[in-house]
């Protein structure tokens, strides 16, 4: 199904939280079995070079976890992560370092993601400096260049983060990531904390950088409007599983999975005035105790008996359009 080489690829990756090695107490049956969260459950993800992939889904469905797995910040419980076509697990220390540099992350909270006690030039240049991308003499120029590229005035490089506005801080975060010359940016809710006018500026910056540097993006957001605007392809997650993926027009034009449909229906739009909102039915299940079968069945208007027992597989339903729903089998 893939033609272009993958910048990052996840194969049957799972991440479980709260697992622990069974200790003496467990063996004696004294300890309570650990509560395991299956944050990411057998996910395949392929991000081609130069592609922008949007990742959507409701809160707690495992988007951030997936992003961290892709950025190498978390090790998968199962499955494998490939960067530049090679498995992380097979790499030696140097290659792994290079791979980690290739994939950088932009964080949601522009306040928490900058160390309040470091100056901007240190924040931006530290990694480049200690990884030998630049020497002491060239440091200042290098930092200035990175800042300029992220749309910041280099004259401010000796300031501390608290002296900047939210939008500027987000730019510092971007400059920091760019300073190690990555090829892939994982943006986890990178604009969620910003208000509309600033959000527009940052989104524009992302698009400019994509053009200038040929960057690849994994763009995580729950704002469908933003994802629609930016992405080439969209992946929809529900409770740790990918339930649908398709090129952006295809997905927004012809959503296949009932969950995707519900999601799109609720997106507030400028055009929809004096709407009458309706309550959703069913409860949002907890990732600690996901329902059996298709995770969405308690909320699904089309649920069938089969949905309660058998988890549907992702299946191609159109060109580059995959969906995991039993309804597709029937037709």
């Amino acid at each position, binding site marked *: 199904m893939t033609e272009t080489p993958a910048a990052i690829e996840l194969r049957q990756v799972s991440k479980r939280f709260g697992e622990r090695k069974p200790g003496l*107490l467990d063996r004696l049956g*004294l*300890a*309570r079995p650990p509560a395991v969260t299956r944050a990411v459950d057998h996910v395949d993800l392929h991000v081609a070079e130069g592609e922008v992939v949007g990742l959507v889904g409701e809160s707690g469905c495992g988007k951030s976890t997936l992003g961290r797995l892709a950025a190498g910040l978390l090790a998968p419980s199962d499955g494998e992560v490939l960067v530049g076509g090679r498995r992380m697990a097979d790499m030696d220390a140097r290659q792994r370092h290079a791979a980690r540099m290739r994939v950088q992350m932009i964080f949601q909270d522009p306040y928490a993601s900058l160390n309040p006690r470091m100056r901007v030039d240190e924040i931006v240049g530290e990694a480049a400096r200690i990884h030998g991308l630049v020497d002491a003499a060239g440091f200042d120029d290098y930092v200035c260049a990175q800042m300029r590229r992220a749309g910041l005035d280099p004259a401010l490089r000796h300031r501390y983060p608290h002296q900047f506005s939210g939008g500027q801080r987000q730019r510092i975060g971007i400059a920091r990531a760019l300073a190690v010359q990555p090829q892939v940016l994982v943006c986890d809710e990178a604009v969620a904390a910003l208000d509309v006018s600033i959000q527009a500026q940052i989104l524009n910056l992302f698009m400019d950088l994509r053009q200038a540097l040929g960057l690849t993006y994994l763009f995580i957001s729950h704002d469908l409007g933003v994802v629609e605007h930016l992405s080439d392809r969209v992946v929809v997650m529900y409770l740790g599983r990918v339930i649908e993926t398709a090129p952006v027009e295809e997905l927004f034009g012809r959503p296949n999975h009932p969950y995707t449909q519900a999601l799109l229906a609720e997106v507030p739009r400028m055009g929809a005035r004096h709407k009458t909102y309706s309550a959703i039915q069913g409860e949002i299940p907890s990732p600690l105790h996901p329902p059996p079968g298709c995770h969405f069945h308690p909320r699904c208007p089309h649920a069938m008996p089969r949905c309660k027992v058998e988890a549907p597989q992702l299946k191609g339903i159109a060109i580059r359009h995959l969906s995991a729903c039993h309804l597709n089998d029937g037709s």
Partner: protein
Amino acid sequence: MTGWLLRRLAQAAVVVVLMTIIVFAGLHAIGNPVDILIGQDVDQVERARIIAELGLDQPLWRQYLAFVNGALHGNLGTSFVYNVPAVTLILQRLPATLELAIAALLIAVAVGVPLGLFAGLFPEHPLSKLLMAGSIVGFSLPTFWVGLMLIMAFSVGLGWLPASGRGETVQLLGAQWSWPTLDGLRHLLLPAINLSLFKTSLVMRLTRANVREVMPMEFVKFARAKGLSPMRVVLVHVLRNTLIPLVTVLGLELGSTIAFAVVTESIFAWPGAGKLILDSINALDRPVIVAYLVVVVCLFVTLNLIVDILYKVLDPRVRLEGAA
């Protein structure tokens, strides 16, 4: 819960074992109890007999093993000085220290919390500033100094309260307690105040800091937005959240108060365990020291358990599993 409890107990056991080893080695370094204990004019034969009787002729590791063996059979040794089982001795004295420590803590809470609350709610009020400055005094005056001042003022000067000792006691749950009698309370008051001084300052400052931390929280504003009376906002919403860190600190403080009431006990001639341990250290009465520390550690463990459970009661967010 069971697992957590077992883990805690196992850890405590390790701590106890470690501590006994350290105490054995440490006391060995300080001096030979023989030199202090055995009368100066005791002849060589007698001396050897006594040393052998106390088991001090054995190499240290053997003495330790003998102790461990005894401990496993529930016997922590017999005091060199008093010739009484060390545990008996400690349990005789501990109630006095316990009631002193608890009284001190109660005073600290009864005085410190309201004052701290006031200082936290009205940080700019002159009285608050005075309280804060005053609390530093509570921190910085040495206990022994304050103790004597209290005696001078309230016993010698005004003659209101007795200067020393424990008053009338009542037998309760197999121990002597002085709080059920008026005379007992009168004797308890001064030393308890003395011991509580530091703690009162601590509680006051802690309460103030916590109140100042909780006050700007959104939920306090929300409580006010519900139209609740300021009284209820403070007493239910603010105080409840303030208490949680306080409980942790106080739990630890009670432990250290029990362990370190030495100075107060010595000034007020309070027949507690602190005085006993000080005397025992001076006499290198190892069985008492070791037994005392074992008891104190057990007390600490119990207290920590209680604190954790209280914590859980006060703060539903804490899960015991996570606390281990």
